[in-house]
């Protein structure tokens, strides 16, 4: 875990990509993209249908040993409007345990526009103290924690380039990496992320074993 001070609040990021706000007993996760694998089935591409199960297990494992009461999912929890109905039994069971055990806040993602699930409310925004939880970062001077972009960063060592998922922290923004098993990434040099990257940015690169913190200057631009 590494600590991030964000508008005087203390957050912790785990190398799996879960952001903790221990003071409030909250875990924040973004872009689960459940059933992304099976979404390709329509066109005859049959990827192993176990990605939702993997993603949810990883989520449980990541939070169960911490004293967490609330889980905030920053949107694109489901890959498409039918994803919920496609979930295999095991994944479905895991999902139900999650919403039973924790208070889960669902933020609405761009993949979920037409998604409807009984008893689940998708919010455009959720606010605690002065922190706004949204799916896609806005160019406003409020303090925001968001997802959407699936940021990855590349750093060049003397021998080779290393690319990994990352959390991006710039002034009033925290942008979380995607958590879903089959999700890819967008390099933080991409024009789409430009408004949220500047010389004051920090990049937390997440690997299997650890978290490495860099300034944006060190990460290839």
């Amino acid at each position: 875990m590494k600590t991030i001070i964000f508008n005087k609040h203390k957050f912790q990021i785990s190398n799996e990509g879960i952001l903790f706000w221990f003071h409030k007993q909250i875990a924040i996760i973004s872009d689960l993209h459940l059933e992304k694998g099976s979404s390709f089935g329509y066109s005859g591409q049959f990827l192993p249908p176990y990605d939702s199960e993997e993603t949810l297990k990883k989520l449980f494992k990541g939070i169960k040993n911490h004293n967490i009461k609330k889980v905030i999912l920053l949107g694109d929890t489901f890959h498409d409007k039918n994803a919920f109905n496609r979930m295999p039994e095991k994944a479905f069971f895991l999902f139900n345990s999650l919403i039973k055990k924790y208070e889960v806040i669902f933020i609405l993602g761009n993949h979920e526009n037409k998604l409807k699930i009984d008893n689940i409310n998708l919010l455009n925004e959720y606010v605690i103290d002065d922190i706004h939880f949204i799916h896609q970062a806005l160019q406003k001077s409020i303090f925001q924690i968001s997802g959407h972009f699936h940021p990855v960063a590349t750093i060049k060592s003397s021998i080779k380039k290393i690319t990994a998922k990352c959390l991006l922290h710039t002034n009033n923004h925290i942008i979380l990496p995607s958590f879903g098993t089959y999700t890819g990434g967008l390099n933080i040099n991409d024009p789409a992320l430009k408004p949220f990257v500047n010389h004051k940015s920090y990049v937390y690169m997440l690997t299997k074993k650890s978290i490495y913190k860099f300034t944006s200057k060190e990460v290839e631009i």
Partner: protein
Amino acid sequence: MSDILKIEPIDNWLKKNNWAIYNHQIETLNLSEKGYDVLLVAPTGGGKTLAGFLPSLNDLINNKPKKNNLHTLYISPLKALTIDVHRNLTSPIEDQGLDIRVETRTGDTSAYKKNRQKVLPPDMLMTTPESLALLLSHKESKDYFNNLKYLVIDEIHTLVNTKRGDLLSLNLSRISSISPNCKRIGLSATVKNKNAVLKFLTSKKKAKTLNVEETSVPKIDILETNNRVPWSGHMASYAIRDIYQKIKKSSLTIVFVNTRAQAELVFNKLWQENDNNLRIAIHHGSLEKEIRRKVESLMSLGKIDCVVATSSLDLGIDWGDVDLVVQIGSPKGISRFLQRIGRSNHRFDEPSNALLVPSNRFEYLECLSAINSIKNKLLDETKEKKGSLDVLAQHILGVACSGPFQVDELYNQVINAWPYRNLTKIKFFEVLEFVKNGGYSLKHYEQYSKIGINKDKFYAIKNKSIRNRYRLNVGTIVESYMLKVKLGNRTLGQVEEWFIEGLNEGDTFLFSGRVLEYQSISNNSVIVKSTSHTQPKIPSYAGGRLPLSTELSIEVRKLLSKKKNWKNFPSQINEWLKLQSKFSNLPSLNGLLVETFPRLMRGKKRFFLICYTFEGRNANQTLGFLMSKKMQRIGYKPISFVVTDYALAIWSINEVTDVNIILNDDLMLDDLYEWLEETPLLKKNFRDAAIISGLIERSIPGQKKTGKQVLFNSDLIFNVLKKHEPKHLLLEVAREDCYRGLIDLDRLSEFLKRIEKNIAHEKLDRISPLAVPLILEINRQTIDKSEMEEYLLEELENEMLSEVGLN
């Protein structure tokens, strides 16, 4: 034997050109006339191709079968060869004014021409295994091949025991079911196991092999030089001046190298020597097609003095009057070398002329062994391979695309293909399930099934888009993602994405024979500019290194183990070996020499262990992993290891005292299976199998990767699949390919059996002469990449954060 073929126009044409008729040409014709399928095994330049076409030409000329039917299909492993053979066949046809239409069809053929060929088939069509698979996936394919009379397969030995061969074999079996009376002629270079090639060609009982012996012994020398032959490395820079002198004395030289990097470097160095302004060109697989074609045609017109080439020029193409073949570096296998020297004096009754240039000392021994092997007519053996199931999956979908099929009928067709003859029905159904809906035990995709059963119990594809997607993914060659290299408006060729990812703006590298400066990537192209630099900053890019063949490795050990062989060696090699025998010991013919000695490395005392296995780099690599694992368990604390084709060096913190324990075979193979599951090798093989079988799709050139829509990462799928269905079909394919291919399991277990109780351990107090080349390799290689990443990141982070005062 008569001296005419009794095919008048062809006889006339031969006479006009003053060309003789070979006996094997007449025999091929006669056997085929009598209804035999024929495998013609002959050295290069024996009029093999003409022999292959004689039966078909005879039928077209004398029996005049009805028009607008495909009469003869010619299949070759190389596009370039189809074009060359097309040209060679057109010559007698035009000369004699014959009414025979010959056309090519490959990936390069225009859509217009392909369509026309569908409506109005030529008499003879020349194509590749992949294009054939595509042709057979059309709905009209049954009608198209219905009247096929002859099938000619060129360079067939290169396809046997490969995935490409699997695909071809399955399609040949389909053609048999469409036109059972079609006669086959296979053309092969000299190979050890002719029977396997014949079985691959045909399942008919009425089949014969015609074997043509080499009549002249090739003249092969090793380059004599006054310069020192280097200890290690592969670039042979020391020999450039000497090679240039030889080129000067010949009219057309081909300089063969083993990798593209070598090609670029040798080409560049030759031009630096080129005071006489000789016309020297370069030819390798990454260069743009137009550039390659231009070089080829200049060669056949005699407008070039020398070509530096990789295997892109290996196969039977006739490019004019080559009178010298230079091979830089060891050819790594005897058959391959024979094929290459066959390029010179492309007529089999004249001796070929070849010059070998070893790029380091071990290679000198290897080159000498290659010459001995050729004198003794030894040949490499290819390991037999079962038909791959990922290829079968692709084929089943292809069959479904061409029209509804019955399961039993298809199964019988499949086992009629030689590589699949032992395929059980259970396995077949497993593959069929995979094609239908992924073959998972969790039935998640049944409603999306790609192929379904109709009411007559026939299987058929669900919709047209499946056919279109199949077409984009056909083939068994999985390549890295390629980018075009652009200099201004000119496209110079293609280069792997990973190579460019390692470059920074302003870096210079060798490509297409010149030093280029990297500027940027845009629209899937690498933008470069010319530069005045003569030395590139990024020296090379790897690719295409072949491991030493078993047969050649035996020859090298023979050579080393008998001192009386050494007297013909040049003095520097001789002295090197003498010193070794005085200081330590020499590798024996059947045993294993192991040396251990302490040595300082980065200021710290380390213990080195060297095994002189001569088993090729793949087997050595695997052995290295296994040995270090065992050393770890025993507590020797291994740090890392390096391999070459000949030997392996491991260094550790503690001294290895008992070598026998580390090399005991039972325990080691257990480790292997465990280790394999964790290697990038398995992942790589999985990726290939996933693409060939159609689980994930090929990246289509020109398709832009955008943000989150990156192409599906096969590693993610691999991890999930391994966890949930470790016995899934594709994982099994990947494992099998691993055992067979890069880790060379068979060779390794044979090795371990052979050396059991035959290990000579030399305890030395310092490095031996034979070990020097290996220690020099250390700078080039490293051990566990992922561990290294963690370490590098940690180091970088600390460095940089303290630099900006944040730590």
